[in-house]
């Protein structure tokens, strides 16, 4: 029983990290159809923001709380710059955006290496997040619980943003039909910019979260980007609901696979599971209904 609870929670915890990494990606993916490979480096930028904040403030607890909004702004600003300089020119060429942003991610990794050095750095965990709580006899680390709560909070905030605010309405309109949205007076330029700001900002928050469970290095991005993409693909492009379900499902599945085999074989099994799933639902869990033949 403890083992089961422990495994389930490990899966949920993995899922919450995946969700944080994939939420922003799903948003920007759905918005312009661009595939932002540099999203992983935005996560890394968020992690380094937490590191810099801690160096500046000293106190682990205060710096964590300050880092969350700061990393949101840092990630958001990077996304805005990327969108303005490159992506707005090529949103009708989605596959090429993947390679362009891969180039950007190479550059950002090297920038991080030149600024912070190649060896990884550690961010201290605040005292109020150290230790475990008992859940039906299974020890649950507080940091993991915090990340789960953070992921759920981000999900709720994003859902609220999309559902009730004017910006959310505009984003949804542009995602469903860009031309029609333009025709009804929505500036798709401004909507693109704001979507990228929010989506990339979420990457920054994800970066702060991952500093609680591991060390930060310039190679952080590639560790998360592939899994985040898989979540987006399995959930359905641009579907926040789908991303949430897919993230937790993949998290639990991966922890089960890794428990019953090894970490590396678990990774391969996850990929196989996704390919098999796409045989059943080629467009992911949820699909945007359009009249397009593709």
């Amino acid at each position: 029983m403890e083992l089961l609870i422990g495994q389930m929670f490990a899966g949920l915890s993995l899922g919450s990290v995946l969700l944080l990494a994939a939420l922003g990606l799903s948003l920007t993916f759905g918005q312009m159809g661009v595939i932002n490979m540099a999203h992983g480096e935005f996560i890394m930028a968020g992690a380094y923001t937490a590191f810099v904040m801690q160096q500046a403030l000293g106190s682990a607890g205060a710096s964590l709380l300050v880092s969350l909004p700061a990393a949101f702004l840092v990630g958001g600003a990077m996304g805005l710059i990327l969108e303005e300089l490159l992506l707005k020119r090529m949103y009708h060429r989605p596959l090429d955006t993947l390679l362009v942003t891969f180039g950007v991610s190479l550059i950002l990794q090297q920038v991080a290496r030149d600024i912070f050095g190649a060896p990884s750095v550690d961010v201290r965990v605040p005292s109020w997040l150290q230790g475990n709580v008992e859940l039906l006899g299974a020890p649950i680390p507080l940091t993991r619980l915090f990340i789960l709560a953070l992921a759920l909070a981000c999900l709720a905030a994003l859902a609220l943003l999309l559902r009730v605010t004017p910006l959310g309405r505009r984003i949804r309109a542009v995602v469903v039909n860009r031309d029609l949205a333009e025709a009804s007076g929505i500036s798709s330029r401004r909507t693109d910019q704001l979507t990228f700001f929010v989506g990339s900002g979420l990457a920054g928050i994800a970066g702060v979260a991952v500093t609680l469970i591991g060390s930060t290095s310039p190679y952080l991005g590639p560790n998360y980007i592939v899994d985040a993409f898989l979540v987006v693909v399995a959930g359905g492009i641009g579907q926040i609901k789908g991303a949430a379900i897919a993230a937790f499902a993949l998290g639990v599945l991966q922890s089960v696979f890794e428990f019953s085999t090894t970490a590396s074989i678990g990774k391969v099994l996850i990929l196989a599971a996704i390919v098999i799933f796409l045989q059943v639902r080629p467009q992911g869990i949820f699909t945007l209904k359009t009249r397009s033949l593709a």
Partner: protein
Amino acid sequence: MSITTTRTAAGGFPGRFSSRLSSLRQSRAGVLTAFAAAAALLLVAAPALLPVFSLSLLGKFLCFAIVAVGIGLAWGRGGMLTLGQGVFFGLGAYIMAMHMKLADAALFGGSGVPDFMALYGTGTVPGWWEPFRSPVVTVLAVVLVPGLVALVLGLAIFKRRVKGAYFAILSQALAAAFAVLLIGQQATTGGSNGLSGFRSFFGFDLADPANKRMLYLLAAVVLLVVVAAARQLMHSRFGELLVAVRDQEERVRFLGYDPATIKTVVYVLAAVMAGVAGALFVPLVGIISPADVGVTPSIAFLIGVAIGGRSTVLGPVLGTLGVAVAQTSLASSFPSFWVYFQGLLFVLVIGFLPGGLASLPAVLGRLRRKNDAGPSVPPAAAAPEIPAAPAVPAPPGMSAPTPVPAVSAAASPLAAVPAASKELRP
């Protein structure tokens, strides 16, 4: 019908058509000459001029170029952005490496167990290594295993009409999973160290410079064969279908072809090319490790293809060779600069010159024309396209004198026809 004949009479079409045909013939002869020159350079000049070390390095670049030909087919012609060619490259390479390890162990060790296995693991050869003791099985597997993996994956993905971004991401995930799998199996694949320290290649001593030259020549011949085959394929009906699938997949389906089959065939071909390249890479370079097959090297394969011109035959080869040479000369002395440079190459070439260097003359020409013509003289560029003032003959059975020539003199023949029939209506 009548319009066509009048155009012929006006001398618009046939002249242009035949000149285009002859320039095509010329360019075909030009390509053949270029190909022969490149072949001679690779096969005769390079081995005669270069020292053995540089020759092996060039051989390594040729292996990348073989992968690039496959990517050019799949991505440039077929529109399938494959981010996982490292997997097929790695499959070919590891199969060859396993065979060479086993052969070395049998030749030099006596025990038949590769050295690293005794070091890391149980000291016994795992069952799935055993088939690769046989040289014949190895050579077959180098071709068949990547091909089969690509076939299964291609069928699973393309038959369900998973495409575009989904396909790119899945192929990328495949590369990530493959690298993780290799690293995790320390005892049987050498883990992150990979496999290295080979001494013989099918019984030939790898330390002997003559055998290194032979290996280089093998890579060069394979590259030339692959380029010739890709060219033939692209000029066949199948090649046209492939481009049609890239540009308008639904129309091809409505015409009765199955785009999934066309895509799968090309994906398998590209995988086989990558596998063979990997198998040649191992004896030439002497090591294969997960660092050569993961996500980043898999995507890095694309940059040479993009620079040279993804939809041409020779572009990917030349682009890849150029990037490899640049990397070798720059990366060792300025490693940090090289990464920035590589990133910028991706951004600039893909973002602003998607046709690659092969399209540079056309792009520059377009820019120059735009500057020359300017907005003040709009019709000048378009005017020669329209055949001048052909007379539309009166429909048979109408004897009344018609004002047609006067009308059609003002406009193109297509515009003249409705005007004329209006005039003729009683």
